[in-house]
């Protein structure tokens, strides 16, 4: 599995995985909130974005979609996508070519949604989710054999945990993902373990602070000089 990789590429693969997963995870949550806003809970969108530390205001379900996708906030999909694309360009040589093409297509889709004239509906969200699925699928098709693939996978898993901890999702599944993260990290450096030097109460209760243990391990994994 030994593969030469600059710290820049390793980091880009990791962040590409994170941004794609962030968009995917958030889109699923937006879909759920959109459905609730229609006739169950008008505040569902506000509550969701509060967990991302974002104050979002909307007047209808459709308006929520617009504000979530292209509002001026840290989770704006146009910006998230630009970050993903940038990381994909830097690590292009390590990405499946179909996956790369779909990242460019996904960027086109999200950028087209950023103009005020464009109308956004659930179809766009479905289309974006389909493209993300294709990206994961195309990349997984390579098989997780190389270091670059493990960095990509690691980014995806870390983001999954991040979202689950923010949203307070069920612990047993989060535990499983944390174990998967550890497997990926050990493939890259057998001497590292996210649970080493991590406070026991973090491991037992999984507060959001658990992310600190993960980040500390990744800092040891990718050595930037």
């Amino acid at each position, binding site marked *: 599995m030994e593969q*030469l*990789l*600059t*710290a*820049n*590429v*390793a*980091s880009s693969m990791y962040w590409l995985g994170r941004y794609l997963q962030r968009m995917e995870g958030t889109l699923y949550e937006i879909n759920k909130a959109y459905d609730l806003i229609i006739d169950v809970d008008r505040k569902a969108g506000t509550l969701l974005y509060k967990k991302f530390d974002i104050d979002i205001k909307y007047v209808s379900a459709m308006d929520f979609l617009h504000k979530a996708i292209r509002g001026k906030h840290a989770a704006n999909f146009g910006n998230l996508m630009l970050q993903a694309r*940038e990381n994909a*360009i*830097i690590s*292009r*040589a*390590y990405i499946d*070519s179909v996956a*790369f*093409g*779909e990242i*460019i*297509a996904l960027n086109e889709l999200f950028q087209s949604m950023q103009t005020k004239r464009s109308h956004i509906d659930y179809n766009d969200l479905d289309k974006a989710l389909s493209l993300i699925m294709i990206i994961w699928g195309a990349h997984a098709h390579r098989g997780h054999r190389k*270091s670059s693939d493990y960095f990509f996978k690691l980014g995806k898993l870390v983001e999954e945990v991040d979202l689950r901890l923010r949203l307070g999702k069920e612990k047993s599944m989060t535990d499983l993902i944390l174990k998967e993260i550890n497997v990926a990290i050990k493939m*890259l*450096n057998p001497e590292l373990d996210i649970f080493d030097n991590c406070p026991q109460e973090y491991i037992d209760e999984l507060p959001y602070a658990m992310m600190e243990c993960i980040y500390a391990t990744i800092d040891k*994994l*990718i*050595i930037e*000089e």
Partner: protein
Amino acid sequence: MLEKSTKLHKKFWDIFAQQDRHKINEFQSYMDKFAVNFNLYKDGNFIEQSLPFDVIPRIISKKEFSKIEKGLIQRVTALNLFLEDLYTDAKIVKDGIIPKEFIESASGFLKEFVGFSPSKKVRTHINGIDLVKDSSDDEWVILEDNLRVPSGASYPLSIRDTYRKIFPDFFENLKIEPIKNYPKIITDAMEYVNTGGINVVLTPGRFNSAYYEHSYLAQEIGAQLVRAHELVVIDKKVYFKNYNGKKIQVGAIYKRLDDEFLDPKFFNPDSLIGVPGLVEAYLAGNVALMNAIGNGVSDDKGIYYFVPKMIEYYLNEKPILKNAPTYLPYFKEDMDYVMDNMEKLVIKDVAEAGGYGVLFGHSLTAIQIKDLKATIKAEPRRFIAQELIEFYDEKCFLDRKLQDRKADFRAYVVMGKDVKVWNCGLTRYALQEGNYLVNSSQGGGFKDTWVMEL
């Protein structure tokens, strides 16, 4: 003016006529999706744009290409001998073939490297030689030698790949030379000069105009794509910094930046894209650089004038491919001719590239001609003048209709153990009708080049 249509062209158009025109849109979107980009800095702003391309390929018969191939092998062999000679014994100067002061005044001549011979005495590893086909006599003419950092080879590779996916009929029914061997040719050349260690492609970074190409080629040749700070020189040896802190020795660097930025300890101290200590490692023979430092002297348009003489001097052969008729105002006889005929000549600044510094006499006003004459008289070494060559147009499918555009051809010649000419190249066309400048940096587009036989 279009080249006379041949049986090969007819075969192409017969198949083209049967193609669904919607496939052209499919072609466009496929190319866009895979982001064949060319970055530009305009008015201080970074602009990332798709490189314009055309779906109609240039067709060159295998027989015709074979002559080009022989001519290019001859030319690059002579240029390599010239550079090796120039930086060691300089016999060509001592024998009076090229004036000493002409060499010494070339900005690309680096006297600090006199006496150094690179790995296997190869200096011209990857070369882009620009040609046009003269409509007056149907002969190919060399316009320029690019022996420093020629770019563009990834574009025909990308467009060919797209072509094969969208229009397989052509490749099933026509005898088109395959081109996928280019990365292998480069790898072989790298391995030949490698001094022991891994191969890397050194890029200035993400915002360089040809970053797409750097990334593409690194992937295709199986080399690491690195920026300067991802390499380190220790004890005159170059090392690649792996993500886990390990350092792996580098044996060959395909550098995609100009000499002056390569090493801040040796060249421009302000360079942020160079590797400190790299030149020392190179001079110690511990790493091969592709292309060699100091090749800029042969890209000097004034030196171009002497290439036919180099071929005769080093190889004792007549040049197979001719130069455009060129005048050096440096010589009095040529200066007189240039002054008397400026309106019909093309004037070029010897140190410029990418279509910059090119002036067409016929498009200048009387005042501009007068000013230019004064400038040339004041700095004769800085300019060359060439007869305007009416080179052929190529058919291009632009704005949903067939249109004629001036087109040149950049051939890629790679030197390792042998000199090899890639069976393809970069055909560049001008975006505006009648424009002679086809360079990407001047807004020109590109198309595939098919070397075909019946």
